[in-house]
């Protein structure tokens, strides 16, 4: 059953790719979306879907699906490259609050793997550590013992770092809910109602972080430069 489903989805993936290649982007989008509706996904699927939207000059969906693709495969150069293209179409310029280089370095490492990536890496390091430690314990000769000791301590340090990063990453993923603005232009209010004053205006394709929601139709959002405000849920699409 599962196998049948799999071959079906890969068949429609090939078909949608064919449509894409022939320039029928709208039809290709339908094809890709049908795979999503069958509860199957992959970084490549999101990437191709985003490319279709980009070709149709649909800024919001294009950026949305590139970001989705990056969630599954954070380092893919093609995705990063095309996301850069899509971001050139956006209107808002949001200057990020400058961060120290140490923070940047830490963040870069943190985001190089997904939560499950860090989890598998940690498990792998545990096994490696145990083997090296036993090697140290069991080996008789002085030279071997020294070698095993040094390498196992190194692996232990790596393991601890990886665990710290794993929990940090998990907490970050739990607390941060990025979303993409889908409305062509939207007013961000100071309070969650339409009468409130407008604090600023956002345009399609801008990435925001959702802090909290109110009555399930308003979201408090935060920009990368630290500004906050409320906007209707319907004009956003959450990445998670």
């Amino acid at each position, binding site marked *: 059953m599962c196998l049948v489903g799999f071959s079906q*989805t890969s068949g429609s*993936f090939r078909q949608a*790719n064919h449509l*894409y*290649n022939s320039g029928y982007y709208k039809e290709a989008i339908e094809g890709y979306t049908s795979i*999503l509706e069958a*509860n*199957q996904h*992959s970084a*490549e*699927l999101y*990437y*191709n879907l985003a*490319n279709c939207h980009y070709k149709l*000059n649909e800024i919001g969906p294009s950026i949305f699906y590139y970001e989705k693709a*990056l969630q599954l495969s954070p380092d893919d*150069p*093609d995705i*990063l*490259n*095309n*996301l*850069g*293209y899509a*971001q*050139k*179409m*956006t*209107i808002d*310029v*949001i200057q*990020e609050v400058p961060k120290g280089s140490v923070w940047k370095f830490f*963040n*870069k490492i*943190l*985001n*190089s793997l997904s*939560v*499950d990536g*860090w*989890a*598998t890496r940690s*498990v792998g390091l*545990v*096994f490696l*550590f*145990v083997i090296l430690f*036993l090697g140290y*314990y*069991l080996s008789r000769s002085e030279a071997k013992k020294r070698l095993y000791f040094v390498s196992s301590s190194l692996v232990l340090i790596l393991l601890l770092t990886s665990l710290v990063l*794993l929990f940090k*990453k*998990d907490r970050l993923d739990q*607390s*941060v809910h*990025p979303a993409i603005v889908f409305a062509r232009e939207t007013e961000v209010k100071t309070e969650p109602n339409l009468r409130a004053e407008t604090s600023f205006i956002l*345009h399609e394709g801008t*990435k925001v*972080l959702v802090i909290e929601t109110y009555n399930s139709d308003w979201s408090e959002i935060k920009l*990368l430069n630290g500004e906050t405000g409320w906007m209707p849920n319907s004009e956003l699409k959450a990445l998670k």
Partner: protein
Amino acid sequence: MKRNILLVTFILSGFLSAQVSFDAKVSKKQLGINERLRVDFTMNTDGDNFEPPSFENFTVVGGPSQSINNSWINGVRSFSKSYSYFLAPKKRGEFTIGQASIEIDGETYKTLPIKITITAAIDKPKDPNDPDYIASEKVHLVAEISNTKPYLNEAITVVYKLYVAQNTGVRNWREIDSPRYSDFWSQNIDVKSMNVQEGTYKGEDYRYVVLRKTVLYPQKTGKLTIEPLSLDVTIEVPSQRRDVFGRSFMSTVNRTVASRNRTITVKPLPENGKPEDFSGAVGSFNFNVTTNKQSLKATEALELKVSVSGKGNLKLFRLPKLVLPSALEVYEPEHSEKVNTKAAGMQGSISDTYTVVPNYQGSYPIPNVSFSYFDLKTKRYKTLNSERLIIEVNEGPVGASNPNNNTTGGIAENVITPYLNQFSSFKTTTNFKPIHSKPFFNSNLFWLLLLTPFLLIPFTIFMVRNRMTRALDVSGNKIRKTNRLARKYLSTAKKSLGQKEQFYNALERALHNYLKSKLRLETSEFNKEKIEAVLGTKNVNRANLDGFISLLTSCELARYTPLSVVDMQNDYDKAATVINALDKQIK
């Protein structure tokens, strides 16, 4: 006569200790520019060398006229003498009538200065005894307004016409007060040639000249007043006197004519259906956003033009702003107006030209812009949308991306951007995963895999320790060794303990096997003598040798004698000890 009075005054002045007074009086302190003013300088004692003030800002229309009033009442004499002037103001504003001076009894007296306020022309000259009354009946200045109930920002035209009756003439005129259209945007339209035209004014035949045309755009709603225009006109009026031929002499009169104050009611634009982006444009317009290039290389310049053309208040609203992708470098727009103002209002086009320089390649959609205006013909708001433009930048650096892709967020940090040269194409292969797959982190399997390896460490340590203690324990080791040897060779025998034949067969085989492996004897060499000889050379002591031989013997005997289980057990134990003992001695 004057001299006599002087003389009398001179004589009487000795008797009367009268206070000398000399003051100035005006008929009114505030007057319209088309009215006149009378100033009297009055003294109660006659004096010499009267000097009037300069009367700048006024025209002296009449005077000075002198009058003397001398009366005796109940033996008391009262005297007054005054100099009167009739003044016409030259312009609006606040002016001062300066001091007049006179010498009385050798002393100089001066009047106080008086402030006069001159306002805009007043509709009806308040002075009914105007000498040029006829002129006022023959010359009229009229302001004609095209529409007295316009919408806010709808153009109206004011035309000033000077009507002159048939038998009078106008020699020249001078504008003394032009209206200030404070609540309007206004523009005068030059009247190039003044053609005298025939027309009627209140049913009578008149000639008229269009003096001035002004286009007004009301900037406020409600009742607004259009201030009158005032002219100083030199008019020729037929007088009563006639010449020999019976033609009347023309007498010349200077007169100020003013149009009447006009009030218009400005209607506000309807609130109903007012678009959000409405910026006050009223009229009928076309709206366009155009570009001079659709595709270009990076760092080349491109012009984007937002233009509105048509009829209406073109200079009075703002063009909608273009919102462009942030990756484009955009300079401040250059505004240009090509507007002609005619009597019907403004006409032409206004435009904003943006210079855009794309720095990186890519495709840049320009979002469509909307422009709304109030259409006077349909009395409705109309919204025009520009077409969506897409600018393709083909060649050039790919360059840094948007700063906003630096994410603090949980998912992706896109700083590491190994930019490729172009937009990458689709990917052909993929591995699908279910969207809602359970996360590995925090699953039971995760914790199991993370923690169980650590259990291996104490387990191994325990095992190693155990082995070491055993190695140290000597006697225990011996027993264990015996057991091990017995296990190795006697296991089949032990299994068949109780079944005589099988047991002894197995026991014999076990003994032979032992010798085979220890002494490297061949099966063919098995006989007691040979065994004895070999074992003898291996320093095996007598007792063990005998024990071994007796075991072999009992194995042979057992085939023919009945034996109990106890005997078998004894033989088994014996075999175990003998093998053990031999093993120790055979090196």
